[in-house]
């Protein structure tokens, strides 16, 4: 086969495999649970990145398989043709890959600003991480709890701190992770969209009890939340 | 055509080495080593700038006092002078003026030695220590690392001076001397940065 023919077959194989792969990927849900606005943005990012990864992976796969099948050495000891990269090919490669990066970057920046940018909130909880448990302080209401309760469909502001080691507040279903750093409070914003109870984990090694440093986050309606808060207040100050 | 064996880059005893190339390699090696040392001080300075910029006042808490400028200022003059005398020693060596070479080398050691003595006195009378929060930590770590480099530098200068005294240093055999001079100038430049940031600014 002539070089041109080889190139055509290889490019076709790449195009077909990539198309199939992208088609399979779009519409997938990659994150196991999506219970917040932020988690939804993140899942979209996952899907986009996976879709973009497919043609990249297929390029290498086709390179591997095609060369192993068609460019094996014959019984003679002849060398291959001394081909070199044309400047056009090099320029094209550089331009395409750089544009892909820029595209991903722009998309990621929008997502980042949406998730992390300073925003208004209607509900605030202080999260106090310590070796080895979580404490959620509802200071305005005058009590602390060991479970996080937040209202659904409202932007919640979490202020996170620690006095001992570095911990990390991870709410997997809500797509939130932020370290708790001694010496400076950090913050996160979350807008939960699904009612339910989800895991709270510590995501930064903090010593012996890192494994057991878990809790729950309960996303409830405003009414349920009010009732729970009232209950907690009464228990705190009899 | 193969290259002349005598000009080959031999590091084995029986192969002749071109002394100019060997000198060139050594000096390049020393310069690269200094790059690495610059990065070490870079990390220490970075730490200083970060903690200082995060503190509303300096020293934080307002209890400690920043050291006065007299002694460190004097030290700056001493160290800069010692770099001058070091360079004069180099030039004297190249001019094959043995007497002056020795004189300037001894002067460099003396000036550097007085620098260290004054610094130790300053440390003793500063009124704060290593364990006094970030202020003490950054101050003493930076000046301490620098002082250690000065000490090593003085030792190196003393070694080369001793070799010079025994006749092993001359106009075409001064690689070690020149290497040490690079190191010494570097130590001086670091001090200038130290003086400006730790004491003045």
């Amino acid at each position, binding site marked *: 086969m002539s070089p041109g023919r080889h190139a055509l077959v290889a490019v076709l194989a790449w195009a077909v495999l990539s198309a199939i792969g992208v088609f399979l990927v779009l519409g997938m849900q990659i994150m196991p649970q999506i219970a917040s606005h932020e988690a939804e943005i993140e899942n979209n*990012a996952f899907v986009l990145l996976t879709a973009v990864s497919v043609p990249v992976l297929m390029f290498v796969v086709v*390179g591997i398989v095609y060369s192993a099948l068609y460019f094996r050495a014959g019984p003679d000891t002849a060398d291959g043709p001394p081909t070199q*990269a044309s400047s056009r090919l090099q320029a094209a490669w*550089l331009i395409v890959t750089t544009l892909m990066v820029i595209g*991903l970057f722009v998309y990621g920046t929008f997502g980042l600003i949406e998730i992390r940018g300073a925003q208004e909130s209607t509900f605030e909880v202080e999260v106090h991480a310590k070796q080895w448990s979580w404490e959620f302080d509802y200071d305005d209401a005058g009590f602390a709890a060991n479970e996080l309760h937040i209202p659904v469909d409202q932007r919640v502001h979490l202020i996170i701190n620690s006095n001992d080691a570095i911990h990390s507040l991870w709410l997997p279903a809500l797509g939130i992770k932020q370290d708790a750093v001694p010496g400076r409070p950090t913050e996160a914003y979350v807008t939960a969209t699904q009612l339910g109870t989800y895991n709270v984990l510590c995501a930064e*090694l903090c010593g012996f009890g890192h494994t057991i440093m878990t809790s729950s986050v309960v996303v409830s309606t405003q009414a349920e939340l009010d009732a729970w808060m009232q209950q907690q207040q009464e228990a705190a100050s009899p | 055509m193969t290259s002349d064996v005598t000009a080959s880059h031999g590091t084995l005893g029986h192969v002749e080495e071109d002394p100019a190339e060997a000198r060139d390699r050594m000096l390049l090696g020393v310069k690269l080593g200094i790059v690495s040392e610059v990065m070490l001080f870079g*990390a220490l300075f970075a730490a200083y700038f970060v903690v200082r910029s995060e503190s509303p006042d300096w020293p934080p808490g307002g209890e400690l006092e920043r050291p006065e400028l007299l002694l460190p200022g004097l030290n700056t003059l001493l160290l800069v002078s010692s770099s001058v005398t070091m360079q004069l020693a180099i030039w004297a060596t190249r001019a094959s003026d043995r007497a002056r070479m020795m004189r300037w080398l001894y002067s460099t050691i003396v000036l550097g030695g007085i620098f260290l003595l004054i610094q130790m006195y300053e440390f003793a009378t500063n009124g704060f220590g290593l364990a006094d929060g970030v202020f003490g*930590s950054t101050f003493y*770590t930076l000046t301490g690392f620098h002082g250690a480099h000065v000490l090593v530098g003085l030792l190196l200068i003393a070694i080369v001076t001793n070799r010079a005294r025994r006749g092993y240093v001359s106009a075409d055999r001064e690689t070690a001397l020149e290497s040490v001079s690079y190191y010494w100038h570097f130590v001086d430049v670091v001090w200038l940065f130290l003086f400006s940031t730790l004491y003045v600014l």
Partner: protein
Amino acid sequence: MMRSAPVQAVWRPGFTRAIVGGALGFAIGGGAMAVLGVLGVGVKPGHILGVGYLGTLFGFLLGIGAFRFWLTWMIGREIDADEEHESHGKAGDWKRYFRFTTDHKVIGVQYLVTAFLLFFTAGMAAMFMRFELAQPGVATDKDLYNIIMSTHGAMMITVALISVIGGLGNYLVPIMVGTRDMAFPKANALSYWLLPIPLLFVAINPLLGGFDSGWTAYPPLSQQANLGQQAYLMAFVTIGASSILSAVNFLVTVFRMRAPGMSLMRMPIFVWALTVTATLVLIATSVVAGAMTMLLFDRLIGTSFFRVKGGGDVILFQHLFWFYSHPAVYIMAVPGLGAILEIVPVFARKPLFAYPLAVFSFIAIGVLSFMVWAHHMFVSGMATFFHIPIMFTTELISVPTGLVFFSAIGTLWMGRIRFKVPMLWVYGFLWAFVIGGITGVFLADVPTDITLSDSYFVVAHFHYTIIGSTIYGLFAGTYFWFPKITGRMYSERLGRLHFWWFTIAFNLTFLPMFWLGIQGMRRRVADYPADLGGVNLFVSIMAVNIALSVAVFAFNMIRSWRGKRVAMADNPWDAQTLEWICTSPPPIENFAHIPTVTSAPYEYGTPPMSAPPVPAGGRPQP
């Protein structure tokens, strides 16, 4: 009066004297501190360990004779030329591998063997980890798990940092550029001998209480932790010093000692890769040495760099640590990439595709590597605005990294590929490194990183990238250059067995970890949710297979090296870099006559091809 052999061994510079020196050094250093403590000075166990460690290190180095030349020079005595000359050792004398030998080929083998031994040890630690992780719940002890995990990390990082550049690089670079040794042979030997003591302390750190912080050693946890943490920090700084010394050697050798005719753009791509790597080592390593020193000071002498109470900043450590440690992963990867790109043309029988662009890609990777460190800190509480440029530079680094694939696959294209064992590893690299690279983009993108940070996705990513580049490059290079170094040929059959077994096991071990990470399995913990037990058991079983395949490799190497000598051509691969015009193994002085170079070593497919291939990198010996 004749001294008996053991007594001679203690008096003569060498390994025995080094061990004695090390032990004495520890006794003197640690003892002095202990005495001070008894006298009432506030001495902590850490001080005893610290000064004891320094004593051990210097005692060992004095014992092996590392400072003999310099000390003689310093007190103003003349050097004995014959003794100098003997320092490169005698060919065939196995004892020179246990001495302060200045021949770069000996040092290269020392590094290579040490790296492999460390690799096996760290692999055993991984077996313990996978045993624990085979089932949910904590079967052994969760703190012991973290200690072993941290030791596994510390050792493997060291292997990745020193194996290709220290082992293959030291052996090959002087020969590849056409000279007789490195620029500073004694410093080269010192670089190697700086390693045994810190590696010993890393290996025994569990006995000192271990450290559970992982190799990243973040304070405040690392300030609270016990002596094992300190052993690790001191070892890290020492290994860093060894690397910096080695980097200076590489750079001066490459820039000042190339054979006539070898312009920079005629250098083998492997040499370019190591040059970039050495530059990264030179610039970045001191920064982490500074960070580790500050941490040691916080632990031992009361400073407050990272202590909140004293006004210190915990995140400062992360910035300083990662400013080195991100370039560090390229220090690990780039030598492997260089080895791979060096090997592809030989077995594809084609010039390296886009060689200048490949050179550019290594330089670009090196430069960009200094601008991305904070992507390890996206959830650290760092200012949000800073995430944006870091996300950009991190994603951008995939462009030069992609060029490596462009070059490799372009070389394969229309080639006449011979699938010898080194080439199999090249193919394995292509698959593993593209997976590693793609998954890196998921971590570079902040929205996805929020879920993935500190999860098993990260573990899978870095194993794919580092094993893909460093370990595949190391295996490819070891097989490829085995005939040159030993003068013998390894077993192709065992080599193929090793490759397939390793590759299948490695992929089946780490591919599921991407999924596990997305499902929420955290890293650095001995336990995980019960529903992930089945996959973890599978992963553990596959991991054992990795170890078994590596045992095949070790057996192949030892048997092939020690076995009967079979006639073999000096250049069994018909390769064109300069080491292939030497005998196998090369003589001590590498070349009888320094060759003159007329082209880059990639003249495959260029006529004439009638006679036995004349290596275009050099001329046949007269």
